């Protein structure tokens, strides 16, 4: 091998590579390229960034206090109602109308979105994290399977309402003292949603892992001495990514809705603190006369969930080497 190559043309000259036409591409770059080429993902990302910016910056631009009551201007309709009903009660001061107490709908939508997005994301990530870890451990480590799955059964059969009440009784006061009324509530809500919604993810991940770990590539990885942790992160997790991403999308929607259910039970934010789920729930009784009050928060929730879904699709396609480059 170390001998110098004899000079002169060789018969396999024609097969000789000219060297790579372009410098080698990193894997991340491939993924990124594929991702940006995915139309759905780009539209999803655009909307998500738009909504996130709107709820983050919006309240500074539209600086009306969402809790400010203005009885004289209650039950205003959104500006666009003028298009078909010129006698509607509208005002540029309240572009999206106001509720039965005269609170500005746009301001509520913006600041409500902030709470809903924060709760939705954090709770969803928390639940995914717990679910994935439990699922992977149960599927991969045989000794843990029994105990972890029985724990999952326990959590699945636990009625949520009493559990919530116990959590509130035990933790509300300490959390409130430590993080203030809203911060404490946020932690409590997120923790409650997180620990009561991880079970489906865990079961799905475990099911997939059980099948995957018997596949040849895992055997191959094991036979070359790959450490279990590395097998999990390198070989198993990427292959269960797509159900996890589906869980993430569904989990986000569930978390935003569950938050509103919690506030009915008195576990959520104070009653005058708007969130999308709560705005939607409060408006159901008046949906015939004021359809916008259900439509706007409903559309906001759906758009967020749809964006995350398309983003997830794009990410999945980009990360799947077989789908990439098709």
């Amino acid at each position, binding site marked *: 091998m170390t001998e110098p190559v004899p000079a002169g043309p060789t018969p396999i000259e024609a097969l000789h590579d000219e060297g790579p036409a372009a410098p080698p591409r990193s894997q991340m770059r491939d993924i990124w390229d594929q991702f940006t080429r995915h139309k759905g993902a780009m539209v999803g990302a655009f909307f998500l960034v738009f909504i996130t910016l709107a709820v983050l910056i919006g309240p500074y631009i539209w600086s009306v206090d969402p809790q400010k009551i203005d009885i004289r201007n209650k039950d205003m309709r959104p500006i666009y109602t003028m298009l078909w009903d010129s006698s509607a009660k509208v005002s540029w001061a309240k572009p999206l109308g106001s509720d039965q107490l005269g609170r500005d709908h746009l301001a509520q939508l913006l600041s409500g979105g902030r709470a809903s997005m924060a709760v939705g994301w954090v709770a969803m990530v928390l639940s995914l994290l717990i679910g994935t870890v439990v699922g992977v451990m149960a599927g991969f480590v045989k000794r843990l399977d029994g105990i972890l799955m029985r724990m999952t059964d326990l959590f*699945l059969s636990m009625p949520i309402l009493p559990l919530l*009440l116990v959590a509130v009784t035990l933790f509300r006061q300490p959390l409130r003292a430590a993080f203030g009324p809203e911060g404490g509530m946020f932690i409590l809500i997120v923790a409650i949603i997180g620990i009561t919604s991880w079970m489906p993810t865990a079961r799905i991940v475990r099911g997939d892992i059980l099948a995957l770990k018997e596949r040849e590539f895992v055997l191959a990885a094991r036979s070359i001495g790959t450490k279990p942790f590395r097998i999990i992160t390198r070989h198993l997790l990427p292959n269960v990514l797509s159900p996890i991403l589906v869980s993430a999308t569904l989990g986000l929607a569930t978390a935003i809705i569950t938050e509103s259910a919690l506030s009915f039970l008195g576990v959520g934010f104070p009653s005058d603190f708007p969130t999308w789920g709560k705005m939607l729930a409060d408006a159901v009784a008046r949906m015939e006369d004021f359809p916008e009050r259900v439509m706007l928060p409903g559309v906001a929730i*759906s758009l967020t969930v749809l964006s995350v879904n398309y983003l997830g699709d794009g990410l999945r396609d980009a990360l799947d080497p077989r789908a990439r480059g098709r």
Partner: protein
Amino acid sequence: MLTFAIRRLVLAIPTLLFISLAIFMVLQLAPGDPLADQPLTIPPEVRAKMREALGVGQPPLVQYWKWLVQIAWVEPKVLIDWLTRESWLLGWLPDTQLYQGELRVLSWQTRSPVMDIVVQRIPQTLWVVGMAYVVGILIALPIGIYSAYRHYSVFDQAGTFITMIGFSIPPFFTGPLLIVIFSVQLGWFPSIYDTTLVVNDWSSFKTQLQQMVMPVMVLALQTTAQISRYMRASMLDNLNQDYVRTARAKGLSEAVVVGVHVLRNSMIPVVTVIALNVPSIFGGAIITENVFKVNGIGQLLITWLFANDLPGVMTLTFIFAFLIVIFNLIADILYGILDPRIRYD
């Protein structure tokens, strides 16, 4: 596989005991009072007497033990008696008469045997929630499969759009919306479910169908969205695998490739989700049942939860836990059938 199933079934007993104890303790810890729904005009002394008559003040472990004896010993006796006396299945056996009038699990709110009410609720729960689940699965599987097969086609995009919107809009909104459209404006369907309707001829069957349409639609939307997403994702993972290319190269028809090879390998997460949700049919669909007044088991559970009816809630959650454990086992067995490489021993 058989030894595995038997071992798991035996293990289920201590599991259920533990789960029921844990639930009992949570219920004990939770603040609540079975007299919360009684008016404020009742003076505290009378309330104290009423609580005493219900046995609220007894030590938790004593209460748990009593409940356990009732559910694990007395209720099965009643069930066996009923089976040998009235049911068509075992009615030919002599009446066993095991039940000698011991105290059964009595609800604090209705002062009647919990199991009797549960039995009363099963028909409407199965009709509505069970039917919605079957409909949901039947719609979801083809949508999921075809969406994945025609990835990013118009069908796929439309399916994604509708299912995701369907999932992100909660039933407390879709329910009243359907009522306003179909009951109030169009007058097609009744807004209130008649649980006393007996189906015995064509016209009563039609009435039954009419009153089922809306709750089934609301529930099926959620199920369809969830299952079709998992189905689609899982199919997509498998459609690009090497074995699919091999199968095609062998000259198998697309129907066989997709419908047999890919489908079978994509079923694991879907089976998990389906098995996971079957017990919740029994747990009922609390919000939807409430919106349409179906008064199935979900409505019973929420009524008892709010009334802090400890024996009622305990019994319902125990049945629920039992089903969860059983269906978890069924899912595990199905994994082994779908993918013979999965071994449990």
